[in-house]
């Protein structure tokens, strides 16, 4: 049973439960049975999530977006706008806040929660000015010695006329090269979808953590299926082949830590996950702050240098 099917089934059971209006012992008994059944179905489904399920969860409408993490993990967040070259891309939200009382620069890919929000944030798909804002804020962080936290959640960089005219490829390439040279610690957190080069641009870091049910891939499973089988409906099968889960990426040595999510996914109990992120961030920031800059840069280079070499 896939996750969407499971959600439908649970919804049906919950409706049944709502129809029990009396408080007789028989009603109580039925209520208890139903809620146990629901919990078991859920637990069962989450114990055997397929990669296709993870794709579904990573894009789940109830899954918290970057804004949630900015509000939860950082204090005094002050958003800073614009790339100083063309405009302000609102699919990327960046600024300064404090973590454990110390200033950090936070750069996040923003998906909206509603259609209106998504129109503002372009469904989390950046244009070149978004990536150039990333570079500007990163260099600013470097100047003031602030660590950088990148939050990744995008279907990919936007494929459009304006994006090409303004050099989408160049903007991403600059992110890749310049983050490798930044003399401050960089930590990346994949919270939902890590789509292609558009996500990679924010991934050059000293530590990448990935939420248990988030995904990261070279292209969307739909895109993959339509290239491989000329049928985007076979995305589930594609997801199976692509090795796009947090666990797969950990195995490849691309991701450094996987942050656990509760049964039901992060949206059913966000604190469960954000507490762990906070702990991990504290630990890693401390470790990285103790490193000499030359070693920090060498380790960052080596990490990416080693990927794909047998």
């Amino acid at each position, binding site marked *: 049973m896939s996750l969407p099917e499971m959600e439908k089934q649970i919804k049906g059971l919950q409706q049944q439960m709502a129809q029990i209006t009396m408080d007789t012992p028989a009603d109580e008994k039925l209520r208890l049975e139903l809620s146990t059944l629901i919990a078991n179905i859920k637990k069962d489904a989450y114990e055997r999530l397929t990669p296709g399920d993870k794709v579904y969860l990573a894009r789940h409408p109830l899954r918290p977006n970057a804004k949630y993490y900015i509000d939860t993990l950082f204090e005094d967040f002050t958003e800073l706008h614009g790339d100083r070259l063309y405009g302000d891309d609102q699919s990327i939200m960046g600024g300064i806040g404090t973590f454990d009382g110390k200033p950090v620069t936070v750069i996040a890919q923003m998906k909206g929660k509603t259609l209106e929000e998504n129109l503002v944030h372009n469904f989390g798909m950046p244009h070149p000015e978004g990536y150039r804002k990333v570079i500007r804020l990163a260099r600013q962080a470097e100047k003031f010695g602030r660590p950088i936290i990148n939050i990744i959640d995008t279907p990919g960089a936007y*494929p459009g006329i304006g994006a090409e005219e303004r050099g*989408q*490829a160049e903007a991403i*390439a600059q992110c890749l090269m310049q983050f490798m040279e930044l003399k401050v610690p960089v930590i990346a957190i994949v919270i939902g979808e890590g789509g292609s080069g558009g996500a*990679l641009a924010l991934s050059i870091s000293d530590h990448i953590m990935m939420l248990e049910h988030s995904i990261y891939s070279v*292209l969307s499973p739909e895109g993959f299926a339509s290239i491989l089988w000329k049928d985007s409906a076979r995305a589930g099968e594609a997801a199976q082949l692509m090795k796009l889960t947090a666990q797969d990426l950990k195995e490849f040595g691309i991701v450094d830590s996987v942050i656990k999510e509760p049964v039901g996914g992060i949206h059913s109990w966000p604190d469960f996950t954000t507490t762990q992120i906070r702990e991990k961030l504290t630990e890693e920031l401390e470790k990285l702050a103790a490193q000499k800059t030359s070693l920090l840069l060498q380790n960052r280079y080596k990490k990416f*240098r080693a*990927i794909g070499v047998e």
Partner: protein
Amino acid sequence: MSSLFKERKEMLLGFKALRSNKKAPQFTGEIPDGLYEKCPSCEKTMLKEDIVEHSFVCPHCNHHFRLRAAERLQLTVDPGTFKELMSSAKSGNPLEMPGYEEKLQRDRSKTGQNEAVVTGFGRIGGYPYAIAVMDSYFLMGSMGAVVGEKITALTEAATKRKLPLIIFCTSGGARMQEGILSLMQMAKTSAAIGRHNQEGLLYIAVLTHPTTGGVSASFAMLGDITLAEPDALIGFAGPRVIEQTIKQTLPEGFQRSEFLQERGFVDKVVNRNDLKETIIKLSRLHGMEAKG
């Protein structure tokens, strides 16, 4: 009869090679066997030798035929100076993707190369360079772990030996059969280019048809000097993906070399017949010393 033609062709090529004192190009990529060739752009039929003699450019309409890596090397690198690196590096199938090994095998036989890029050291007009030539006849020039590794290793070697770097780019992007590992090659190659850059060394990127996706969004766009052959498709997203997204047809010339020059992302669009001279001139302008 056909063997007679072939003999005549070889003689002619030999003559021309003697005359121009260079080895005759022996490989034909886009140009199939036969004495005559029809240009896919202007549809004029002409002697194949005429195309080859014009650096694989149609003398009538300037169409630049796609080149095989070996052809590019013959057109660009001084004869006898190229020393290849990692020629035997072969891709595995890290994700166990069905059908991938067959495709690799097919293109190995087709091109006589093990991968979609040839790297090495050589001289261009006497100037020593670290050279990478991508080949779009090998899995669309897509970048998997081996392509990424070869380009990274070459760039690191260039940094170590204080050599300028030139990469002839052509690629459909990341090699999707290698999934996330191919995506990560963008990071790796860009990192190596960054170190080469920090040493104050020259990197010339030559963008040829087509240069898109993960290659365009990494080392292809990081040159100190970015040259492009005329009318090459260059961009991040493929035109079809863009059309599907925005649901309209794209304007004429969109994502072509001239468009990129106009928008400020290419330094100079250079005809293939002038490319070697341009590289030599740029080398001189960077104070390099010619050898041999």
